[in-house]
C-alpha cells in the first residue's frame, strides 16, 4: 500500500461535470460544473443551507453524485477508485474530527500510523501549531481552538493533495487563523489544491484566486 507521500499514481484533476447530489431524498446540489487545478485555491461562498458542506463531502469522495459525473484526483466519483485517492484528501469539517478519549499526541500518532506517515513528524507538527505543551491533553478536555489546531497538525502530517476547508476560520483567534493560512500555503507550494467554503465572503476574497457562489444547490456566479 502506498504511503501518504507517494503520489505517483494519483491524478491531479478534480472536475465536476453537471454534477448533482441528494441527501435523504432531497436534491441538495444541481448541475455543478467546476474544475480545480493544482496550485489553485477555490473559494465557495453561500448562505446557510446552500449545500456548501455537501459540495465539500462530494469533493472528498464521501458521497457520490446522482447526476452528472466527477473526478477527484483522477478517480471517478462513485467508483472503487476513490478508495485509492482518499488518503490524499484532507478535510477540515465544521466539527473537529478528534477522538475525545485520546490525547492530542495519541490522535496524531493514530492518524500517522494509519496513513503510513513518519511518526517523527508529530513533534514538529505539534510545535508548529503551538500544542507541544498541551500534547498530553485529552480531546474531551480541549477547547475548540485546540481541536482545530490538532486537525491542522494532522493535515500537516498527512500532506493532502486536495485540502477541503469547511468554515475553517470560524471561532478561531488570529494565531489559529494564520495557521490555517500557512496550511493553505503549504498545500499550494506542494502543488496541491484547496477548496474552502464560508458563509462570509470576506474570509475568501483575500485567499482564493476564484470565488464561486453557491445558492440553492447551484453555482451561480464566478468572480
Amino acid at each position, binding site marked *: 500500500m502506498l504511503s501518504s507521500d507517494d503520489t505517483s499514481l494519483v491524478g491531479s484533476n478534480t472536475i465536476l461535470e453537471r454534477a448533482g447530489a441528494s441527501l435523504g431524498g432531497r436534491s441538495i446540489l444541481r448541475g455543478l460544473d467546476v474544475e480545480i487545478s493544482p496550485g489553485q485555491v477555490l473559494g465557495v461562498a453561500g448562505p446557510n443551507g446552500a449545500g456548501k458542506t455537501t459540495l465539500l463531502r462530494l469533493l472528498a469522495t464521501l458521497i457520490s453524485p446522482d447526476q452528472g459525473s466527477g473526478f477527484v484526483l483522477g478517480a471517478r466519483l462513485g467508483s472503487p477508485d476513490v478508495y485509492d485517492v482518499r488518503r490524499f484528501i484532507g478535510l477540515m469539517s465544521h466539527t473537529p474530527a478528534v477522538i475525545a478519549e485520546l490525547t492530542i499526541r495519541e490522535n496524531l500518532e493514530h492518524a500517522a500510523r494509519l496513513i503510513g506517515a513518519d511518526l517523527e513528524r508529530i513533534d514538529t507538527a505539534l510545535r508548529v501549531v503551538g500544542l507541544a505543551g*498541551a500534547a498530553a491533553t485529552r480531546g474531551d478536555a480541549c477547547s475548540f481552538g485546540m481541536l482545530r489546531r490538532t486537525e491542522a497538525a494532522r493535515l500537516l502530517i498527512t500532506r493532502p493533495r486536495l485540502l477541503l476547508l469547511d468554515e475553517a476560520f470560524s471561532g478561531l483567534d488570529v494565531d489559529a487563523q494564520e495557521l490555517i493560512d500557512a496550511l493553505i500555503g503549504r498545500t499550494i507550494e506542494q502543488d496541491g489544491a484547496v477548496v474552502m467554503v464560508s458563509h462570509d465572503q470576506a474570509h475568501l476574497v483575500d485567499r482564493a484566486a476564484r470565488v464561486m457562489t453557491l445558492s440553492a444547490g447551484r453555482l451561480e456566479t464566478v468572480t
Partner: protein
Amino acid sequence: MNRVRILLATAGIAVLTGLWFAFTSPVDRLQGEFSRILNLHAPFMWVAFLAFGVTAFASIMWLIRRTPRWDRLAMASVELGVVFTATGLFTGMVWGQAVWGRAWDWADPRMASTAVMFFVYIGYLALRRAIPDPEMRAKRSALLGAIAVIQVPLVYFSVNLFRSLHQTQSIRPDGATMPREMLMALLVNFVAITYLYFALLVARLHLARLEEASAAETAREPDAVTPPRLSEVKDV
C-alpha cells in the same frame, strides 16, 4: 499525614488483635473451625451498612450546605462501603459453601438484598465517574446517595421480615445467645473493623483533598497553547 499514618498503623494493630481473638476463641460445635469466619463476615457487613449510612448523611448534608467536604465524605464512604460489602459477601460465601454446601442461598433474602445494595453503590460510583463537572457530580451523587440508603435498614431487618436461613441476630437487647468467649471475639472484631473503616475513611479523605488541590493547581497552570511557529511549517 502523620495523623493518617498513626491511624492506619493503630487500625492494623486492632485488626491483628481481632484476628488473634478470632483464631483463639472457641468454635461452634456444629460449624467447627468455619465459624471463625463469622468473626470477620458480620463486622464487615455491619461496617458496610455504616458506610452507606454515612454516605446518606453526607449526601443530605451536601444538599443542605453545598460544601465540598460533604461530597468528599460521601464519595469516600461509598468507596469503602463497596469494598467492605464485597469482602463481607465473599466471606459469607466461603462460610456458606463450607457450612451449607452452597456459596449462595436464595432462601436467604438478606444475601440477595445485600448483593443488590452492592450494585446500587457500584452504580453510584459509575455515575460519579461519568460526570466531569464537580458541582453537577456532587449534586447528582448526593441525590442518589440519599435515596439509596433505603436499602440499608431493609437488609438489616430482612432477617426478621422474611423466612431466612441466617440465624436471627445473635446479639439482642435482652442478651446474647452465644458463649462469652465467642461473643468477646466477635465484639473485638466489630470494634477493630469499625476502627479500620474510620482510619481508611480519614486516609481517603486526605487523599481526596490532595487530588482536589492537584486538580486546582493544574487548572491554574499557564495555558499550554503557544503561538504557532509558522516559519517551521515547511519542516513538517
